[in-house]
């Protein structure tokens, strides 16, 4: 997966550091698996009219929780820890590029997230009711949405580190966005249950579009549970794609603007 040897070297070291940090590892590995059970407990019986099937619910939930916990939150703490130990500054004196440093630091969390989603997909197909996608284009859409969502979580993590001076402080600075965007992403409960104005606000949150697109790609149903037939165009995907693109643009801009490579002097 990682073809760049500089990124691979850093990713290997980061994986070792993650393995030696039990609380971070539990946060990335176990927490998403627990949280993914929540939608099953409080939503109407899956498989009913307008409700995505159990398999899709599992994969969509895993997408939301692994991206926020495994990628986003994990990366905030890792970047802050390395920055405060001057490791980021030290890395910048070497041959590895700025982007490679961020990608390498994020890599173990991304690998865990994607691994869990892949397992969820397999479980969905083999054990649950996830059917093979009707159209490869839809599946591609889901994969691209996952890639874009991962990139967005990496960027948002980098931005949040600017206001996080210690690893402990991440609980304060990183969690609001995490809780808000996962709760109202449509992965926990269908956004159709919300009043109209809240639905619109939820739609604009960073994770919602990712969840929408993954669900759309896997099952061909929208956030409100409306089925999209193959005959209809990709039109339900247009809005989430635009929102996601806007978030990615904002994330790149904000990272360049605020990201710090060394502790404040």
């Amino acid at each position, binding site marked *: 997966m990682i073809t760049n040897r500089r990124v691979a*070297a850093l990713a290997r*070291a980061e994986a070792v550091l993650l393995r030696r940090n039990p609380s971070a590892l539990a946060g990335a590995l176990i927490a998403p698996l627990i949280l993914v059970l929540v939608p099953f407990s409080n939503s109407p019986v899956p498989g009913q009219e307008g409700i995505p099937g159990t398999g899709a619910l599992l994969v969509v939930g895993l997408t939301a929780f692994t991206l926020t916990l495994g990628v986003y939150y994990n990366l905030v703490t890792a970047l802050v820890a390395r920055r405060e130990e*001057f490791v980021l500054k030290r890395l910048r*004196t*070497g*041959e590895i590029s700025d982007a490679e440093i961020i990608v390498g630091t994020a890599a173990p969390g991304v690998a865990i997230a994607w691994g869990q989603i892949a397992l969820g997909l397999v479980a969905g197909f083999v054990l649950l009711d996830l059917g093979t996608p009707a159209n490869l284009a839809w599946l591609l859409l889901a994969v691209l949405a996952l890639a874009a969502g991962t990139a967005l979580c990496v960027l948002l993590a980098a931005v949040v580190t600017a206001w996080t001076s210690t690893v402990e402080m991440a609980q304060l600075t990183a969690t609001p966005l995490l809780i808000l965007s996962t709760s109202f992403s449509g992965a926990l409960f269908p956004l159709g249950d919300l009043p109209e104005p809240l639905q619109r606000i939820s739609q604009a949150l960073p994770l919602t579009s990712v969840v929408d697109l993954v669900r759309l790609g896997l099952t061909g149903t929208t956030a409100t549970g409306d089925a999209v037939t193959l005959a209809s165009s990709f039109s339900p995907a247009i809005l989430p794609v635009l929102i996601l693109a806007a978030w990615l643009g904002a994330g790149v801009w904000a990272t360049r603007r605020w990201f710090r490579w060394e502790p404040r002097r």
Partner: protein
Amino acid sequence: MDTTDIIHVDELRRQYRTPRRAPFEAVRGVSFSVRRGELYALLGTNGAGKTSILEVLEGLAVPSSGAVQVLGRDPARDRRFVRPRTGVVLQEGALPSGLTVAETARMWAGTLTAARPVPEALALVDLAHRSDTLVKQLSGGEKRRLDLGLAVLGRPEILFLDEPTAGLDPESRFRTWHLVRNLLDSGTTVFLTTHYLAEAEQLADRVAILHRGQVVRTGTPAEVTAAQPARISFTLAAGVSEPVPDLPGVDVVDTARPTGRSVILHTRDLQRSLTAVLGWAAARQLDLTELDARQASLEEAFLAVATAADPAHEEVPA
């Protein structure tokens, strides 16, 4: 020795903008050159601007104005060319505390184009026996050596060391000096900042003394100290009231202490002044206890500069 300039700094300025205060100029028009193969030491008190200059040379920061060339290139813009040829030890021990020595070195080696074998680099800094120890369990001296080991992993042509021995015990400091000397012998150019003057005196081919963002003295340690008077000191018994002879161009400080009279002479001509003092003591049969005569040290030259403060230039008007 190849005398081409490997580092060239011309009228370098670095200004820091802070939201509420007037901009602060940490480096104010600094120029110097470093020749290939030499050890060049930048001396200065804390806050003199040493790290600010070093960060530009390392390519971590761009100057507010002025030009910097490392190996004939811009270290920030031509990083692909410059980085594989330089090694850096930062002032802060910048190592992830949760990795072992070997894991840290392997990680760093993996980011380099042409790295030495990791065991070789660890042996070089005498850490081979600590390969499997976590960084956080290393002593201060061992951490600094690992830092240095990483910096030389890529066989750099230039090594930048920011306060490499700060906070080390004398033994660790001596080991670091020994290592730096070996690197110099193998042709590496070393650029270091320090506020240990003895370190610069022992190791440096040339030094520059930095004060409030400006280079105020530059040259070999001998050249820099030559401007300072030599020093003769001795103690006379408490009862001796004989005045010290008046010698031309010699500055005498004669202090009465409970243990005796402490006398310090500053002179530009050590040999003549010392002869005169010894002749005077012999003629009067005086015992000069704790007699000491020496050329000025770099420390004295440095202190002379540091105490000659010029507060008018401290800050740039907004």
